[in-house]
């Protein structure tokens, strides 16, 4: 099932990427990134059947990182929402050029 898991991982990762490309809501984009991370986790877990438990250890860290990112990221989104009253990225572009 290794190849299938890796393929699934790739597909999910791609869906996450497509999500990032198509959506404009900051939170949804962030969730798409989470999907990508999940896809990678699947790869780690799948590969750990090959190489031992290191991959799973990595997944633990990835989840921690995801949590930390979620904390900071959502705080940032709240901060921008305070300024712009929106999280639609289309409306958040005073920095350009």
């Amino acid at each position, binding site marked *: 099932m290794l190849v299938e898991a890796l393929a699934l991982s790739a597909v999910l990762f791609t869906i996450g*990427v497509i999500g*990032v*490309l198509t959506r*404009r809501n*900051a939170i949804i*984009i962030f969730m798409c990134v989470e999907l990508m991370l999940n896809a990678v986790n699947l790869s780690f877990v799948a590969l750990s059947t090959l190489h031992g438990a290191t991959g799973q250890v990595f997944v633990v860290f990835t989840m921690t990182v995801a949590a930390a990112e979620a904390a900071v990221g959502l705080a940032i989104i709240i901060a921008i929402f305070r300024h712009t009253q929106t999280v639609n*990225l*289309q409306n*958040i*572009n*005073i*920095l*350009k*050029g």
Partner: protein
Amino acid sequence: MMIPAMTPEGAHPLATTVARLVWLLPLLPLLGFLINGTLAMLGVAKVGPADPSAGHDEHAHAAHTGGHDDHAHHAPTRHKFAGIVSLIGPGVLIAAFGLAVACFLAMRGVEMEHPYIVTLYQWMPVGDLNLAATFQLDQLSMVMVLVVTGVGTLIHVFSVGYMQEDPGYPRYFAYLNLFIFFMLILVLGGNYPLLFVGWEGVGLCSYLLIGFWFSEKANADAGKKAFIVNRIGDFGFLVAMFLMFANLGALDFGNVAAKAAELPMGGVMATTICLFLFLGCAGKSAQIPLYVWLPDAMAGPTPVSALIHAATMVTAGVYLIARSATLFSMAPTAQLVVALVGGLTAFFAATIGLKQWDIKKVLAYSTVSQLGYMFVAVGVGAYVAGIFHLVTHAFFKALLFLGSGSVIYAMHAAYHATHKHDDAQDMRNMGGLRKFMPVTFYLMWIATLAIAGIPFFSGFFSKDEILGSVFARAHGSTLADASLLGVPGGTILMLIYGLGLASALMTAIYMTRMMLYTFHGPNRTGEAERPHLAEAPWIMTGPLVVLGALSLVGGWLNVPALLGAIGPVGVLDHWLEPVVGEAALRTTLGAAPHMTHETELMLVGVAIAIATAGIAFAVWRLKPAALVAKKDAVAPQGIDRILENKYFVDEGYDKGIVQPTLDVSRVVLWKGLDTGIIDGLFVNGSALLARAIGWMGSQLQTGQVGTYAWVLLIGVITLLGAFTFR
């Protein structure tokens, strides 16, 4: 550098004589230049304030009134340094002439087979080019030195009177002295580059003197034109020098002649060198196609025209060819070119001279024409004849110019007295001047007869010798054997002879015309001015008298064997034999030019007939009484118009060469290539391109996270593509 065959300096017979002071010859006028130049500067200069940019305009008016803005022609008083300048200017010339005569006497006293060469110092010791500053004193340069200093002295003296009221008096003498300095360098220089120094130096002085009254645009233009046209010739001279150095390995006269003699007869190299040299001569000596500057050069003060543009500088080309006689004798084709160009120039200049109204312009074209004669002479290898004509021409043409100067002086004084502004040089404003200035009148007639070739005047001898030489070389010479563009040399020589005769006829006509219109008939100057017309002071007429005498007797320098009865035969021939004899003999295939007495008599007869006919024709045909003053004259038509406008050659040059060059430079090169393509397209274009890319890049930076993610992802797939599909 000295070729071994040459006598070492110290052992030369002249080394113990006064000739060892030959370096002093040019130094004297140089000294004069320095003194007069300093005086000129002191006379006009007003050193500026310490801070030139402070208070830019406050003292403008004061400076203006205190400045030297007086109009040149209306200077009321003599220059404050006039006394000392009058002493120094001609003084150094008299001294130089004295020294020249002393050298001449010394030279006559010794047996001299080789030129006397004085090395002053190492000039350009570079690589194989070991050029030294050397003076070469030999028979040829002696003749030239005598002419230059002699005629120069007379003209200096004349100038003291002529220029006395000019505010630029010291400057004038400074330039004149400088000219003599360079002229002496030219004739004394021991190698081509040094000759070139003098060559360009005299050109420079010519430039400065033509533009002496620089506030008139025409004068400044004329000076510039003279210099630039001369430079075209100098280009040829330079290339000739490069060719000599590259192929003959030397640039001094001795070695070049020695090496040239080893070249193949009629070879490409000798011909090329000679043709380039001749280009130089054509520039300096106003031959077709570079003669156009000389008539314009009459914008300078008249004594300048006499000295530079008649007697000395313009004959430098003749001197150069005589100096390079060996080279030319190896290149008959080139000689034919020289002679043909000379003949054509003589002819065409004479035709133009027929219809000029400005007295100096007539003389200018006459000069061009006579220079053509000289080139015919040196072209056909009759070097002595060329030099002979050079000398006699120096006498009579200097006289003519000075005489015309005297006339102009009188005219000018008359106009000045009545504050009338009219052309003081136009013959239509003259007429009947014989009454007012008899000395000038008689002397100028002498010169006219001389130039027309009336027997026993100086011009007769020299001109006759030239025509005779051409005729003689039409058979049995290297020239006759050579050909030019397929035409046999003999035919060309006959053509040249024909041209010479025609020119002689026209010379007689236009000179007589000039005399008639100027001195004969009624006076057209104006009622008010007429009482003010008067003969020039003695300081001006004095030199005229001397020149008149020389014009009369100058022919005795080289009396032909045919007229052996009247004096010693061929003095100049003998004198110059060591310098040009060998080369001349090479042209005539080793034999002295030989003609039967009958032929010679016939030639002389034809020449006399033509001269007389010309004068007679002019006297018969021209009616001075019918002339009207310049302001009333009508525009000429037909051939007259063409001749009066000098065949529109100047206009043609302007339209065909000068303006196109300027336009191409401005439009194509500068605006097009320089600012357009190189600067616009490449330099600023690439800067613009970089900026444009930068601008596009910054437009991509939309501020949208979506865009950034897209760009990032495109990067990702490209990168992954590079990794996976290698």
